[in-house]
């Protein structure tokens, strides 16, 4: 289950979707909007995406996770638009027969998502400035 949404993410519904009597382990990861980053204060974040490619890449990651681990069910939801402090920006849920696999597959999905899925966040700093976050690019 892969989804981009402008609505708040329902983590409980996602967790329920991946639960299974075949699975002994469920791992849910949530990315949430944190106030402080390296001493700078965030007021809000805006997320933008290249939606067609983002969905295609998330589906690719899903497939790769299912190839590498005995995944029973997995889902990834990423929110777009304007997010306030504490809001959930991304939710990854995975179920596996055993916990080591569930942790590894969950970790893989969020790690790779942050590397390859074309989504970008713009910081809204407390001083009123905004800034696109592009790792490795001087701003």
């Amino acid at each position: 289950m892969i989804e981009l949404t402008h609505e708040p993410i329902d983590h409980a519904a996602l967790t329920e979707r991946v639960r299974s009597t075949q699975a002994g382990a469920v791992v849910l990861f949530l990315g949430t909007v944190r106030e402080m980053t390296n001493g700078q204060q965030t007021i809000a974040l805006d997320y933008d995406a290249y939606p067609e490619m983002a969905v295609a890449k998330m589906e690719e990651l899903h497939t790769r996770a299912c190839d590498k681990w005995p995944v029973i069910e997995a889902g990834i939801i990423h929110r777009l638009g304007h997010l306030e402090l504490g809001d959930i920006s991304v939710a990854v849920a995975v179920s596996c027969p055993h916990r080591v696999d569930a942790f590894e597959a969950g970790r893989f999905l969020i790690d790779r998502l942050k590397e390859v899925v074309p989504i970008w966040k713009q910081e809204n700093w407390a001083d009123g400035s905004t800034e696109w976050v592009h790792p490795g690019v001087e701003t």
Partner: protein
Amino acid sequence: MTVSVRLFARARELAGVERLQVDLPAGSTVGDLRQTLGEQTATLRPLVPQLLVAVGTDYATDDMVIPEGSEVACFPPVSGG
């Protein structure tokens, strides 16, 4: 051929538009596109070396020849999650 390039995030902000039309000889590569983008749109120039290029929904390397009619997108490193 004319390639219609979608821009995202800071690339869009610097260019001031969501799409750029770039004229390229048939058989041009992603590297050629990258160079032409920098020449044609001065505000994008500082970002050009770090721009990622997608052809369709896949990342493309500079040596890839751009097929006529492809959907091309250019954007800086991603920061989702």
